């Protein structure tokens, strides 16, 4: 089967910058895929999990007899059976030495701290038999009081883990005065209270479900010399380390493979109880075992994201210049401190000040345990929360000052001639141009025209009001400099590794430690290497996601693959060239100093003599006539550890129509102009942006994980956890401005999370902007029609008689309509 490529006529000369269609697609569009659940091994057994229905309980007895006698069942294992072999789900990022982190056992032994925790594992010959038998496991629980609400949890009246004595896991603070990166926040606020403006708000970051499309699955084969683990994970290398570190298996006896992985968004940046339980059972039985979760299990037991209460105090002068920001966060970790769960909200510490120049800044974060599913990274991880907070506040301040919110931002942002710029949080941004991105976004959006339309609709009292939402975001990504991670108490490094193998037949294998799960690394890395080594794009194979093939790696998350992983690839390619030069010189009977490499050819300066890279590769393989002392290979490895983060930014503008009578909202247009530095593949970048936008928009409008007061997740399936569909969304306008990053060879910045970070406040700002004149200054996310409607009702202006005015509910003069009773409907709405 062939795929025809349409070469773009305006394509750049090299591969970098070209909208190459993806290499990955051929298998995926024809169903020739290798998802973990597709794997079948001889004698394979299937697992089903018995899960706690209670949010908080002691396990008093488990009767497995009936389940063991069920057809096809090979064994039933409780936590007590596995406790010495199952390892532990580790927290790799303790915020400080005082952090409290309850032990997180894959299969609970005595105590469950949230609904969905595994209490027993059933193994049978088929998945259906295992599930049937799981119903027969009889567990006696002693139910304990559960604490579910974040504010209640802080009081420590009911404890998530009674043995810890508190629900607070850790407290973490960044203060600009203390660290010398800015002034004193309390002084700034006190001054603003006297003669300036103080904006105080509390925002809720609701709990979200990452909802990758491929449910998680793990296959374990214990029959070889090495234990082989296939898993639907973003982090095969980190998983391998943590299996070795906690299960007593030598790392050298472990091979972890992430085959085709169907999305992650942070949700597969985890070592899961299910992985560890499957390994423990497979080792016990000596047989290959598979566990694949149902979607309902995934929503319940794969980690959740966000879930914060943000108390924010912004101090400004009367003209709108911000003098200080104080952030007080309560972050809900759920029942356990997950792999980087405690650290995620702290990633916001350097981002609440965003693109702005504030005099003083303080960030306080308290991480809190509750009897709910554990919380960890979800696309953006800490930075969407921060961006939401500050971008909502900037709109509020603009309203208070009485100027256009874009003008207010321009008054405060770092100007393009001020880079590199060290912020009040102490982070140095290398490059950016907020003016250029904003100008381009305004132009594409038709900003002035839409403002005019908004004015007309307000004046005519149109029942459908128009709002314009702004988000001028930046983020720090490209995790991460190992030294910085070390200073933050993170348990691993942030480097990335690459190898380039120059095959005798002229083909090239590029091995990357960044483990892709939809991002298109195979295509983008091929483009980069094609340019670097002068090898045709088609002749390059990118290999990843298997610790036996790619033994070194730190995997894919935090928009790190291109800026860290591909930089390692570039450095390995440069080493290949350097290793090839003496061989080429020998072949050409020239001095190494006279060899120059260009477009895949080693030439002798001043002559037309030369040899190609594949010719040198072949020569180094036959090894028949190499110069003395030269190693007979031109393969090369490189490990790259960045000095700093990557700081993409952009201006996003969103127009929302709000029906003031029903609360229904409709997205009219969305423009995103992102500065992500030099772009390797515009097509892939656009795809990342579109998908990111919709995830952020979904937080604003639709998604939210909700528990009842018993601690049962009521949004436990795709029926109730409402992912956006094609019919809910619109087509977007995306464009770019380019300030190349100064911290890597190609000048690239991360893009994987940008859309999600930027879009949530843009949408909510637009909705609030549409109804601000009705007395509304906030709507809790997700902004459902009910919440929008209630906010409008609560904010509706009070008439002279003391009664709230309601918008007319019926068109005047239309047939078959009863005369509305405004006071009655308003009374109802206020109850």
């Amino acid at each position, binding site marked *: *089967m062939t795929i025809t490529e349409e070469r773009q006529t305006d394509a750049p000369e090299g591969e970098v910058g070209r909208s190459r*269609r993806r290499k990955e697609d051929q298998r995926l569009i*024809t169903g020739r895929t290798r998802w973990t659940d597709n794997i079948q091994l001889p004698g394979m057994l299937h697992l089903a999990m018995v899960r706690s229905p209670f949010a908080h309980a002691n396990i008093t007895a488990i009767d497995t007899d009936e389940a063991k006698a069920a057809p096809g069942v090979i064994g039933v294992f409780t936590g007590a059976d596995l406790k010495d072999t199952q390892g532990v789900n580790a927290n790799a990022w303790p915020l400080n030495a005082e952090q409290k982190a309850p032990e997180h056992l894959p299969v609970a032994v005595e105590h469950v701290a949230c609904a969905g925790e595994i209490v027993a594992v059933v193994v049978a010959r088929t998945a259906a038999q295992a599930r049937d038998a799981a119903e027969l496991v009889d567990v006696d629980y002693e139910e304990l009081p559960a604490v579910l609400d974040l504010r209640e949890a802080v009081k420590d009246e009911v404890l998530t883990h009674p043995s810890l004595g508190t629900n607070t896991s850790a407290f973490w603070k960044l203060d600009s005065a203390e660290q010398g990166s800015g002034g004193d926040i309390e002084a700034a606020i006190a001054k603003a209270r006297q003669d300036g403006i103080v904006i105080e708000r509390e925002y809720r970051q609701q709990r979200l479900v990452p*909802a990758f499309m491929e449910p998680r699955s793990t296959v374990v084969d214990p029959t070889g010399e090495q234990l082989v683990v296939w898993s639907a994970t973003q982090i095969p290398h980190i998983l391998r380390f943590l299996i070795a570190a906690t299960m007593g298996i030598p790392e050298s006896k472990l091979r972890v493979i992430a085959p085709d992985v169907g999305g992650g968004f942070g949700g597969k940046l985890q070592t899961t109880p299910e992985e560890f339980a499957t390994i423990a059972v497979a080792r016990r039985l000596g047989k290959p075992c598979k566990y694949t979760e149902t979607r309902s299990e995934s929503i319940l037991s794969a980690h959740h994201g966000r879930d914060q209460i943000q108390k924010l105090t912004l101090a400004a002068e009367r003209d709108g210049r911000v003098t200080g920001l104080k952030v007080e966060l309560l972050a809900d970790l759920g029942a356990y401190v997950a792999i980087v769960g405690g650290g995620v909200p702290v990633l916001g510490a350097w981002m609440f000040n965003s693109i702005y120049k504030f005099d003083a800044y303080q960030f306080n974060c308290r991480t809190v345990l509750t009897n709910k599913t554990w919380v960890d990274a979800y696309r953006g991880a800490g930075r969407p929360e921060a961006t939401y907070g500050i971008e909502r506040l900037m709109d509020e301040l603009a309203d208070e000052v009485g100027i256009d919110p874009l003008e207010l931002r321009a008054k405060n942002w770092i100007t393009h001639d001020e880079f590199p710029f060290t912020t009040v949080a102490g982070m140095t941004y290398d490059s950016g141009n907020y003016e250029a991105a904003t100008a381009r976004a305004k132009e594409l959006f038709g900003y002035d025209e839409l403002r005019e339309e908004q004015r007309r609709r307000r004046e005519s009292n149109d029942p459908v009001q128009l709002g314009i939402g702004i988000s001028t975001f930046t983020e720090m990504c490209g995790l991460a400099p190992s030294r910085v991670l070390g200073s933050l108490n993170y348990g691993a490094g942030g480097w990335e590794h690459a190898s380039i193998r120059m095959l005798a037949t002229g083909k090239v294998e590029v091995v990357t430690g960044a483990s892709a799960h939809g991002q298109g690394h195979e295509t983008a890395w091929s483009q980069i290497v094609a340019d670097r080594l002068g090898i045709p794009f088609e002749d390059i194979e990118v290999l990843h996601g298997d610790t036996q093939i790619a033994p070194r790696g730190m995997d894919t998350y935090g928009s790190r693959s291109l800026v860290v992983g591909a930089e390692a690839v570039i450095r390995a390619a440069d080493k290949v060239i350097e290793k090839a030069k003496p061989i080429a010189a020998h072949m050409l009977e020239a001095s190494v100093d006279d060899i120059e490499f260009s477009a895949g050819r080693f030439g002798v300066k001043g002559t037309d003599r030369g040899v190609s890279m594949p010719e040198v590769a072949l020569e180094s393989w036959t090894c028949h006539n190499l110069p003395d002392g030269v190693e007979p290979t031109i393969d090369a490895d490189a490990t790259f550890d960045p000095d700093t983060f990557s700081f993409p930014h952009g201006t996003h503008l969103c127009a929302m129509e709000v029906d003031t009578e029903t609360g229904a909202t409709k997205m009219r247009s969305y423009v995103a102009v992102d500065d992500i530095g030099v772009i390797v593949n515009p097509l892939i970048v656009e795809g990342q942006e579109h998908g990111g936008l919709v995830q952020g928009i979904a937080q604003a409008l639709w998604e939210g994980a909700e528990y009842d007061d018993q601690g049962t997740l009521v949004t436990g399936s795709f029926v109730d956890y409402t992912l956006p*569909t*094609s019919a809910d969304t619109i087509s977007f306008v995306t464009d770019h401005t380019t300030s190349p990053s100064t911290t890597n060879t190609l000048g690239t910045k991360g893009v994987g999370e940008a859309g999600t970070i930027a879009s949530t406040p843009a949408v909510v700002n637009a909705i609030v902007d549409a109804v601000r004149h009705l007395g509304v200054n906030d709507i809790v996310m997700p902004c459902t029609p009910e919440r929008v409607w209630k906010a409008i009702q609560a904010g509706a202006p009070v008439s002279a008689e003391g009664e709230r005015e309601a918008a007319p509910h019926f068109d005047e003069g239309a047939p078959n309509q009863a005369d509305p009773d405004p006071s009655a409907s308003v009374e109802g709405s206020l109850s």
Partner: protein
Amino acid sequence: MTRIQVTVDGVSYSDDVEPRTLLVQYLRESLGKTGTVVGCDTSNCGACTVHLDGVSVKSCNVLAVQADGHEVTTIEGLATDGELHPVQQAFHECHALQCGYCTPGMIMQAVDLLNDNPDPSEQEIREGLEGNLCRCTGYHNIVKAVQQAAKAGVTS
């Protein structure tokens, strides 16, 4: 166990199945047609979409015994004679997939949509794909791909 006879991607199969077996389980576990995948347990996501006698169905929502005597086409049988189906080609051209997990179902649904309506508007495309969830692409490029395939005059 019940005996069924089903033609899948042009090959005739005869098997004994438990009556409760879902069509998607039969395809994946008995026939090894793992190109068709399972994304949820409430028939919301559409990842398992196949064609039953030429019309799209969510194969998690059909029992294998209901397919007895019928013809099933999966993503693996869509390309013919080594040539990609135009919708497959358009998904590739328009970068309408990232992780690719929803893609088999999305493509099968898009083919069905274009069979019903060869010249759909953007809104009709969006509504026609409403039963298929994608978490990666934001749907933007999927809609473009269907538009491109429509322009190419796709009918299967």
